[in-house]
C-alpha cells in the first residue's frame, strides 16, 4: 500500500542507489553546496541533492530540521550564504522569488496565504502567468486583455470544479474554511501551469475527509507532468503519496530512498527518536 508507483509500470528510481545526494536519471532540480546559517545556527547545509522530474518527492525531518528554510532557499524567498540551485538545467541562483515562480517553480505556504479580500475566482485568476492586463498601461485598455481574461477565467472555473470549490467562486476567500484554503492555494498554484509545485505542509490542520481529496489531487499531478515536492509531518501521508523521500536532520540530508525503505533506515530512526530506538520499524508501515 505504500508508495505511489506511476501507472506506466516500474518505479522511475528503482535502479537508483538509496544514499544521500545520489544522482537521478532526470533531475529537474539540482542543489549544490547550499548553506544557510542564522547566527551560529546552521539551518541548512546540503552538499548535493537532486530531485527527479515527474514524481512526488517528500521532504521530511524532525521539527527544526531546516525543511522550511530549505524550501525558502529553493524558491528564492531566502538567500543562502553559499550554494546554488539548478532548475531544469539552468542556474536560477541569481533569480529572485517572483522570477523563479515565472520560470515554473510555484510554492505554497505552511500558513495558508489565501488572499482573503479577493474572491475565490480572483485568487485563481491571479495565479495565471503572462497576463497583458497586469501591465500598467495595457490595463487601462480592456480590449487588449479581455479575451485573455476570458481564457484564464475558463481555466480557473475548470480547476475550481476539480477542487470542489466551484460553488464558492464568487465568495471572498476569507469565508473559506482552513482546509478549503489549502485546496484553493494548491489550485491557484496550478493556474500558473508550473513545472514544479512545492507544497509546504499541504494537509496541516485539514480534516481527514478533506485530506483524502487533497491527497488525491496531489497524486494526480505527476500524470499531468507536474513535479511535486512537499514538506509533511504526517508520516501516513508521506507513505501514501510519495515516490521518493528525502530526510533532513539538522540542516543536512541524512537519507533518501523509496518510502518502504526509509522507515527502516537506522539514521532516520536515530534522527527522529534518538539513537537506540526502533519504534518506527515496529509500526505497520
Amino acid at each position: 500500500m505504500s508508495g505511489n508507483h506511476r501507472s506506466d509500470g516500474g518505479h522511475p528510481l528503482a535502479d537508483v542507489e538509496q544514499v544521500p545526494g545520489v544522482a537521478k536519471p532526470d533531475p529537474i532540480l539540482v542543489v549544490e553546496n547550499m548553506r544557510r546559517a542564522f547566527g551560529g545556527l546552521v539551518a541548512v547545509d546540503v552538499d548535493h541533492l537532486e530531485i527527479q522530474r515527474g514524481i512526488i518527492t517528500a521532504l521530511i525531518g524532525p521539527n527544526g530540521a531546516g525543511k522550511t528554510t530549505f524550501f525558502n532557499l529553493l524558491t528564492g524567498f531566502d538567500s543562502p550564504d553559499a550554494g546554488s540551485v539548478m532548475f531544469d538545467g539552468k542556474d536560477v541562483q541569481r533569480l529572485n522569488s517572483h522570477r523563479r515562480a515565472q520560470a515554473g517553480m510555484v510554492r505554497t505556504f505552511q500558513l495558508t496565504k489565501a488572499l482573503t479580500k479577493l474572491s475565490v475566482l480572483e485568487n485563481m485568476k491571479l495565479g495565471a502567468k503572462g497576463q497583458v492586463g497586469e501591465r500598467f498601461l495595457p490595463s487601462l485598455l480592456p480590449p487588449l486583455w479581455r479575451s485573455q481574461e476570458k481564457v484564464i477565467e475558463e481555466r480557473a472555473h475548470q480547476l475550481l470544479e476539480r477542487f470542489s470549490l466551484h460553488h464558492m467562486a464568487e465568495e471572498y476567500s476569507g469565508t473559506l474554511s482552513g482546509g478549503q484554503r489549502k485546496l484553493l492555494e494548491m489550485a491557484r498554484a496550478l493556474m500558473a501551469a508550473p513545472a514544479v509545485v512545492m507544497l509546504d505542509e499541504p494537509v496541516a490542520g485539514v480534516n481527514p475527509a478533506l485530506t483524502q481529496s487533497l491527497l488525491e489531487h496531489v497524486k494526480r499531478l505527476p500524470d499531468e507532468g507536474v513535479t511535486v515536492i512537499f514538506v509533511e509531518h504526517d508520516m501516513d501521508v508521506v507513505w501514501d503519496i510519495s515516490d521518493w523521500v528525502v530526510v533532513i536532520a539538522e540542516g543536512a540530508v541524512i537519507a533518501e530512498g523509496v518510502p518502504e525503505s526509509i522507515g527502516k533506515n537506522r539514521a532516520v530512526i536515530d534522527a527522529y527518536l534518538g539513537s537506540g530506538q526502533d519504534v518506527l520499524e515496529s509500526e505497520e508501515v
Partner: protein
Amino acid sequence: MTVAAIDWGFILIQTVETSLGLEAAVYALAAVGLNIHFGYAGLLNFGQVGFVAAGAYGMGLSVTLWNLNPFLAVLVGMGFATAFALILGLPTLRLRGDYLAIVTIAAAEIIRLLARSTTLGDITRGAEGLHAFIGPFRELNPFDPGVEYGVGPFQVGGNQFFAIVLGWGVTAVALVVIWQLMRSPWGRVVKAIREDEDAARALGKNAYWYKLQALILGGVIGGLAGMVQAVGKATIQPDSFVPAYTFFFWTVLILGGVGRIWSPVVGAMVFWAMLTFFQGTLAALVNEGWIPTALMDPTQVNQIRFMLVGVGLALLMVFRPQGIFGSREEMMLDVR
C-alpha cells in the same frame, strides 16, 4: 455683540459652498492619491503633503524659472512628484511597510524646509513663496474674472470658479482612471500585494515594481492636487505644506472609507462641511452668548472646530469603522 437669532440659513449656505469649493476639491484629489497608496496597495504614506508640494513647486518653478507654457509646467510638476516617489520608494519598498512610513513623514518636511530656506531663496523665494507663475494659467481661464458664477446663493468669481472646475474635473478623470485600473488584472495584483506580498511573489508577481508604480501613481495625483491649489490660490507657499495636511488627507480618506472609489470625494466634502458648520455654529453660539466667553472666546473657535471633527471621526470609528463607503463584510474578514 449681536442680539439677533442664529442665522442658520447663512451657516448652511457656507457649509454647502465649502464642501463643493476649491479646498474640498484639493483635499479630495490628494486623498484619491492616498487611497491608491493605502487603500489599494497598502502603502503607509505619511507624507502625502510632500507630493502635493512637489507637484506645486514643479509647476510653479517651470513658469517662474524656465518660462515653460502651462501644459509643460503641469508635466514638470508630475515629473517632480514622480521623482519624489522614486526617492522615497526605491530604497524602502523592498523593506517592511513601516520603513516607507518613517521616510515619508520626514521627506515631506525636507521639501517644505528646503523650499523656505534662504539657501534656495533665489529659486523658491523662501517663506514668501511663488506668485509670478499664475499669469499663463489665468490666460487659459475661459471664464470672465469679473463675473460671478454659480447657482442661487452659491456664487464665486471667475478665477475661483475656473480653479474649482479644474479641481473637480481632474478629480473626475483620476477617479475614472483608478476605477479602470482597479477592475483590471493590474488592480488584482495590487490588491493581492496589499494583503500578502509573499503570496503574490510566489505566483510570479514582482511586488516591488507594483508597489513602486502605485506609489508613483498616487504621488502624481497628490502632485496634481498641489497644482490645483496653486492655480486656485495664485500662490505657492512652503507653509501651506505643513505635516498637518497629510493627516487631514488621512481623515478625509478614513471618513469616506478606505479602498473605495468614491470615498475620498465624499470624505473631503463631509470633512469641509463639518469644519464650516462647526465654525459657523460655534461662532454664532459664542456671539449670541449661548456659550460664555469664559469657556470659549471667538478666537478659539477655529481650533475647537478641529476638535469636533476629531470627535466625529472617533464616533465614526466606533459606530461605522469601515467609513461611509467601506465594506463591513470585507473588514470583518481580517478578524477571522
